[in-house]
Each structure stands twice: as structure tokens, then as C-alpha cells.
């Protein structure tokens, strides 16, 4: 339990920044879906888990890593569309509690299905990228790549949403669900496109995560609650807010984890979240509900 402002403290801070990239990417997908479809996918992290298994098997079947990665992204994008069509569409007009619960049910289904099909043992791709050593600090390359790719993906999504026709339609739907259909935007198609993009982002996160983490059916539970927290902290639907919240939360985890134990880092992050909610219930950057 040493918490001095030494080089290891700096290492923890910088590792927090690197973790933030991944968490921001995950929160971005969830935020996009919430902003447009107005449903929180409680099972978002489980989609990432499915993607990780997909990449694992494609890679072990002999596909080069980039092809396996592409396969993973497409797989989860497809899963997102299927989820929307089969599960979300029938409950679009139900009470919010039912929408939350139905995706919570999918969480159970996906986790159990993964256990039945893939087994409970940890799987790893066995790719070791080594680490970058500066002074006494060490940063694994996989984390650095994750941060870079996640940042690039967020920038691309921002360009897509602000420049392309479909992107503008998506933002328009997010602003007013009633008017846009009257303006000739087919909201059902926009929902499907959004679900595919949200799934694709989960797939991309899966690609980055197989480089760092072992794959097992319950991995979603490690990230799921964290992602919701980041989205709510930033203001549900606010993408910039989610980005900043990801940085705050991952610093709590990284610094708390290096000063005390890993769980305490997480526990402090959740406590911080609850306190912020009491001060700004709409989230740091959320508009008034």
C-alpha cells in the first residue's frame, strides 16, 4: 500500500489513460444505440465476448489476424442486427423496465450459450507483443495499439456522423423520434444501421481485447457494469461525455488499483459515480431529460 508520487504512480496514471481508450470505445457503441434507439443493451459486453470467441476460432483455424479481426467485427455487427430485430423491436413500445430486462435476459442466454458451446476454460490467442520500457515504466504494446485504434475509430465515427447522409439522419433521429419519420427518414432502417454500427464497435473492442485479455464466458461481467456506469456518468446518449467519463473512471481504477488492490480501485470508481449522480443526475454532459 504505497501511494507516493513516484515513477510507479506516473506509470499507473499513464496505464489508466491507455485503459480509457478501450472503455471509451465500448461506451461509445452503447451510447450511440441509446441515443438513437432509446434502449440500453445490458448485454453489450456479452456481444464483445461473442466477438472475442469468433476471433479466437477464426485465428486458430489458420486465418491471419487481420482477417480474423474483420470476421469478428462483421460477426458482432450481424449479432447486433439480429438482437435488434428479434428482441428489441417487439419491445420498442413497452415500458423502459421491460426493455432493460429483455436485454438482461439476453445477457444470461449469451453467457450460458458460450459456456455450453465453448466450455469454461480460459482461451488465449497466444499473441505476445512485448512492452515498451521508458525509464522504469513499462507499457505493453497491446495497450498502446488499443488506445491508438480506439481513438482512430472514434474519430472516424465522428466524421461519419457529421459528414455522411446516413450519419446526419442518425443524429436527426436521436434528436426527434417523432418528426424525422415525417421528413421521409425510414426510422426502422436507421435503427438497423445503428444496431449494426453499435455491434461493429463492440466487435472492434473485441479485436482489441483479445490482444490483452484471456477469453472466458463471464468476461462480460467484468466490463459490463463499468460501461453502463461510464455512459450514465457522461450523460446517456452524450458521446463526448462518455469519452471524458471513461478517462475519469479508468484513472480511478488504475490509481486505486496501484495504491490498494484491484477491487478497491473499482469500488472507489463506483462510489465516485454514485456521488457524481447525486450532484449532476443527468450526467456530466447530459442535457436535461
Amino acid at each position, binding site marked *: 500500500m504505497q501511494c507516493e508520487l513516484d515513477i510507479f504512480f506516473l506509470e499507473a496514471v499513464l496505464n489508466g489513460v491507455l485503459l480509457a481508450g478501450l472503455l471509451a470505445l465500448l461506451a461509445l457503441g452503447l451510447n450511440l444505440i441509446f441515443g438513437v434507439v432509446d434502449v440500453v443493451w445490458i448485454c453489450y459486453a456479452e456481444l464483445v465476448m461473442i466477438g472475442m470467441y469468433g476471433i479466437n476460432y477464426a485465428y486458430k483455424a489458420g486465418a491471419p489476424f487481420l482477417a480474423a479481426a474483420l470476421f469478428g467485427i462483421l460477426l458482432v455487427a450481424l449479432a447486433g442486427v439480429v438482437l435488434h430485430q428479434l428482441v428489441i423491436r417487439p419491445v420498442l413500445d413497452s415500458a423502459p423496465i*421491460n426493455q*432493460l430486462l*429483455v436485454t438482461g*435476459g439476453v445477457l*444470461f442466454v449469451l453467457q450460458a450459450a458460450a459456456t*455450453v458451446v*465453448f466450455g469454461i476454460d480460459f482461451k488465449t490467442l497466444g499473441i505476445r507483443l512485448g512492452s515498451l520500457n521508458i525509464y522504469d515504466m513499462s507499457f505493453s504494446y497491446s495497450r498502446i495499439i488499443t488506445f491508438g485504434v480506439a481513438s482512430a475509430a472514434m474519430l472516424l465515427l465522428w466524421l461519419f456522423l457529421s459528414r455522411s447522409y446516413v450519419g446526419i439522419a442518425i443524429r436527426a433521429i436521436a434528436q426527434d423520434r417523432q418528426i424525422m419519420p415525417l421528413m421521409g427518414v425510414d426510422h426502422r432502417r436507421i435503427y438497423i444501421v445503428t444496431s449494426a454500427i453499435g455491434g461493429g464497435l463492440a466487435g472492434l473492442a473485441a479485436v482489441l481485447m483479445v490482444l490483452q485479455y484471456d477469453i472466458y464466458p463471464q468476461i462480460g461481467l467484468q466490463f459490463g457494469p463499468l460501461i453502463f456506469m461510464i455512459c450514465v456518468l457522461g450523460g*446517456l446518449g452524450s458521446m463526448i461525455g462518455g469519452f471524458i467519463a471513461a478517462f475519469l473512471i479508468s484513472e480511478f481504477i488504475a490509481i486505486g488499483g496501484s495504491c490498494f488492490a484491484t*477491487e478497491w480501485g473499482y469500488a472507489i470508481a463506483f462510489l465516485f459515480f454514485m456521488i457524481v449522480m447525486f450532484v449532476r443526475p443527468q450526467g456530466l454532459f447530459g442535457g436535461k431529460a
Partner: protein
Amino acid sequence: MIRVSKSAIIGLALLIALPFVIRFFFGGSERYYLHLLIQIFIWAFIYTGWSIMGRFGLTSFGHGAFTGIGAYGCVLLWNYVGLTPWLGIPIAVVVAVVVALLVGYPCFHLRITGHYFALLTLALTEFVRLCIVGLRDYTGGSLGTQPKRYGDGLSLYAMQFETDRVVSFYIALALWLAGLAIWMWVDRSMDRYALEAASQDEEAAASVGIDVTREKLKVTAISAAMCAFGGAIYGQYQMYIGPDTIAGLGVSLNIVFAVIAGGLWVMLGPTVGAVFTQVLSEVLRVTIQSTAGLQSVFGSSVLALDTLIYGLLLVLFIIYMPKGILGTILERREKKYASSTATPVRAT
């Protein structure tokens, strides 16, 4: 006054006689069937506790925290301080209520509802679970812990009754009946009308003089106390508590699912949910374990197959039967009754 109907008295008499019926017909596996029934009663109590606030639109994912505080508070006080559960459980329940009020007050005061309320309470659940895991020197971390056995495991002082299943059965039955009584008491109180108004339109309810925050805090306190108490009794019965079996997101989700499956708006809905979920998971588990063919295909991971089917059924329930099993049955019966005694003038 609580009106007791004839069918309720008969039902109660049957339940009281149940252990003897089981002994008579299934003497060999008496312990197993009693265990199943005890589980159903304890969880039905916890689910009923959740539904007391859930029915007013307060969808909490935080009740896994309260069951956890109840169970761990009681066991830790017993193991490390030597405090009898007769004092330990009230202390744990008070702690849970204080936590509920600390989180509830700002939530209700600031009008945090819907998705935000659900996700905020989810954070509370995770926080409590992480604290339990983090204090592993006392709580046994993610492996869980056991209350220290007192004598031969059947003691009034230590509130341990696991070894005698018949005693456990009556304790669980009494617990469940108490839960139903609390439900009825809330249902008949003025608070219920105030809360129903608030769940429809908070501003309007406040404008006619309802102190919305106060009303919500009342049901939250009752609900959290019930869940903490249920969690503590569960720990005393199981003689084992783990962060995933009695605390955490999984427990929270199970509570909410079972209530929705059974029916949120009727008194026996949570009980039906408990019967349905417990029996279903038990039947699936037994069937799958005894089917050699499945085991040879999937190996040990076949054990997750019951969760898979369970999850699928829940998803289907929420999509096609949002009122729950009992809610739907009662609604159908009411419709039938209404059409058979068709009155030309319908009061609205």
C-alpha cells in the same frame, strides 16, 4: 382489517401439513423436497420485498446489495464478534436500510427515475459486491464464507436450523407469510395511493400535496429491510454465503426477473415467480444431469444448459407476457367473468 378468504385458510392448512404429506409419500427424498420448498419460500419473501417498491415504477437493481448486506452483516458479526443473530440480523437490516436511504434520498429528491435509477442502483450492487470481495480477510473474498457452527447445528441462540429441515420449513413458511402480510399492509395504506399517483405523474402528485420523496423513501426502507432480512435467513439456512450467491448483479437480476415472470402487480405474483424459477431451474438441472447423451456431447459445460433455457424463457416472457404468469391468468379470468355477467353499462 385483513379479510381472510376460505380458500386462503384451506391453502394455509395444506401448506402446514405439507411436510407430513411429503414424509408419507416421498419418505426417501424428504430432505430434497423440503429443501426445494424452503428455497422457494425464502426467495418468495425476498421477491415480495422487491415488488413492494418495484410495483411503483422504482425498478431497482440494487437489491442484490441489500441481501448481501443482510447475509454478510449477520454472519460476520457472529463469526468475529460472537454476536447472536438475534442482534446481528437487526443490525444488518438497519445498515441495509441506512444504505438504501442514503442512496434513495438523493435519487428521489433529484427525481432520478427510469434508466438512470436502474443503472445507479446497479452501481450500488457492484459497489457492495466489490467491498465484500475486497475485504477478503474477513469475508473469504469470492470464495464466500460460512457462519461458525454452534454445537450440533441446531440452536435457538445461534439461530441455526439447517440440520432439521422440518423446522427450517416452518421458519421459511412463517417468513413468507410475514412477507405477504407486509405486502397487504402496504397495499391497504394511503401510501399506496400516493405512490401510485406519483408513479403515473410525479409533478401532478406533488401538486396535490403528496410528499413524493418521503413516500418513496418509506417503501424503499421497507423493501430494503425485507431483502436484508431474507438474505440473512438465507445465509443461516444455507450455512454458506458467497458474493455471487447472495450479493451482486446476478442476484439483483434474478430478483427482478422472477418478479416480472410471476407478475409484478398482484400479491402472489412474486411467489409464483419464485415457484416458477426455482422449479424450472431444478427440473432443468436434474433432467440435464441425468441425460447421459447430452453429457457426452457437451461435457461438464452442459451444466450451463439450464441457464440457457432459463434465460430464453425469460426473454420470451418479457416480450409476450409482460404482466407475468399470475397477472395474465388473473386478467383472463376477469375478462371471462366480465363477459359472462355482461353488464350494459360499464363504469369507467
